[in-house]
């Protein structure tokens, strides 16, 4: 008897083991093709964007509102007390601000004079809102509500609070996925700001809860790198723009090979409470000419 059974009065149906084989083959083909080419996933990303993203956008607003409300109730008491203290601080800061504004005016004038152009300010940035987080518990990535239609592209750097958040790893028309630097599959080429010693900064699932990331491969023969040093993205990284703040060294130790050092970094960004990020629309390639 043929395995493809067609009984009287029943619709034509394929036995499940055939389905299993067919879909397995599709899975393998998908894996091979997406491994081979980056553009292969594009139609999937676009379809995903049109169906899922608008819904996620709405629901995340609702979800955020709900959890915000529950937090509000808890925090109201603390806020009243904080408000008192803050009012005093405001008075203090207003005065300070006037002085600073004066200083800034002076600084700007001096900068113009010296034709200094600070790199951070020179990047074009686009603000975006986080609308969804990773569905699983293994990686730390999230979805933002802007995509190629807003001028974003693959590998663009994402910052928040003046520190590096991560980079865009997949993109659709109206959404983009940002893999953060604390994610286990993230590796960033970095250097110390003071001595320009390069290292590799990698995220780790194990350290994520402690809000720490690891660094390794630091060659520091003169022993100048100490705890508390500022770590920025290096100028030899091919994905990350140079001199974006990653964090501060919180612990450092010499590796078993006595050549390199490794340790932990406290990231500058508070990944627990991210809701808005800035995407730098300049890519490393276009700015990497001076290398």
């Amino acid at each position, binding site marked *: 008897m043929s395995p493809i059974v067609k009984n009287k009065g029943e619709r034509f149906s394929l036995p*499940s083991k055939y389905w299993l084989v067919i879909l397995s083959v599709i899975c393998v*083909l*998908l*894996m091979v093709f997406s491994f081979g080419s980056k553009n292969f996933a594009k139609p999937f990303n676009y379809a995903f964007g049109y169906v899922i993203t608008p819904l996620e956008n709405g629901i995340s607003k609702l*979800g955020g509102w709900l959890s915000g409300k529950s937090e509000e109730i808890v925090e109201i008491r603390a806020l009243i007390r904080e408000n008192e203290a803050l009012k005093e601080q405001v008075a203090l800061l207003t005065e300070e601000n006037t002085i600073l504004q004066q200083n800034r005016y002076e600084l700007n004038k001096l900068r113009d004079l010296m034709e200094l152009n600070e790199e951070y300010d020179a990047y074009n940035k686009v603000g975006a809102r986080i609308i969804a987080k990773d569905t699983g518990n*293994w*990686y730390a990535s999230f979805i933002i509500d802007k995509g190629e239609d807003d001028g974003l592209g693959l590998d663009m750097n994402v910052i928040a609070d003046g520190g590096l958040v991560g980079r865009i790893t997949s993109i659709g028309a109206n959404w983009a*996925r940002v893999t953060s630097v604390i994610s*286990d599959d993230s590796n960033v080429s970095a250097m110390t700001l003071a001595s320009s010693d390069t290292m590799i900064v990698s995220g780790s699932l*194990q350290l994520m809860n402690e809000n720490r990331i690891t660094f390794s491969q630091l060659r520091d023969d003169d022993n100048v790198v100490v705890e508390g040093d500022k770590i920025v993205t290096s100028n030899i990284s091919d994905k990350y723009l140079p001199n974006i703040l990653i964090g501060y060294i919180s612990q450092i130790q010499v590796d078993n090979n006595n050549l390199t050092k490794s340790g932990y970094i406290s990231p500058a960004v508070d990944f627990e409470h991210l809701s808005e990020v800035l995407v730098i629309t300049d890519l490393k390639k276009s700015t990497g000419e001076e290398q």
Partner: protein
Amino acid sequence: MSVLFSVLLIFISFILQSSVFSHFEVAGIVPNLLIIVTASLSVMHGERRGLIVGFFCGLLLDIFCGGLLGFYAFIMMMIGFINGKFYGIFYPEEIKLPLALIFVSDLTYGIVIYITLFLLKGRFDFGYYFLKIIIPECLYTMVVTFVFYPLILKIDTLISGRDQRGDY
């Protein structure tokens, strides 16, 4: 009708998981709704429906997680297929067996992901990942199952009652 319900269910649970449950994480852990959906529908409709539902759940995860397309699709498909083996053996109204199945499925899912994505990268501390990620996820998923499974079952019997034989 029943197929439409499955499609809707996949979308709804995926969206719930990515945008709502991330606000209600316990100790940084979110439950795995897609496993619940895959396992429940497999148990209620058999292996064919199970593996197709699993495939599409996994495909959504693949697109979202950005790794290799087809990776999660394959894992989820196998989960759906194996759960589907239990179709017809017991009454879906009894929650204990689906509960056990979902627990085992989530456990397997966690261990497979650990082995393929973490162990091969040189993360040997299995104890940590097992106790801090895999087991909490399983437990949280079980708790959510208590709410979700009866809900899915109720709507499903309501719908399947109308077109019983068009069941695939």
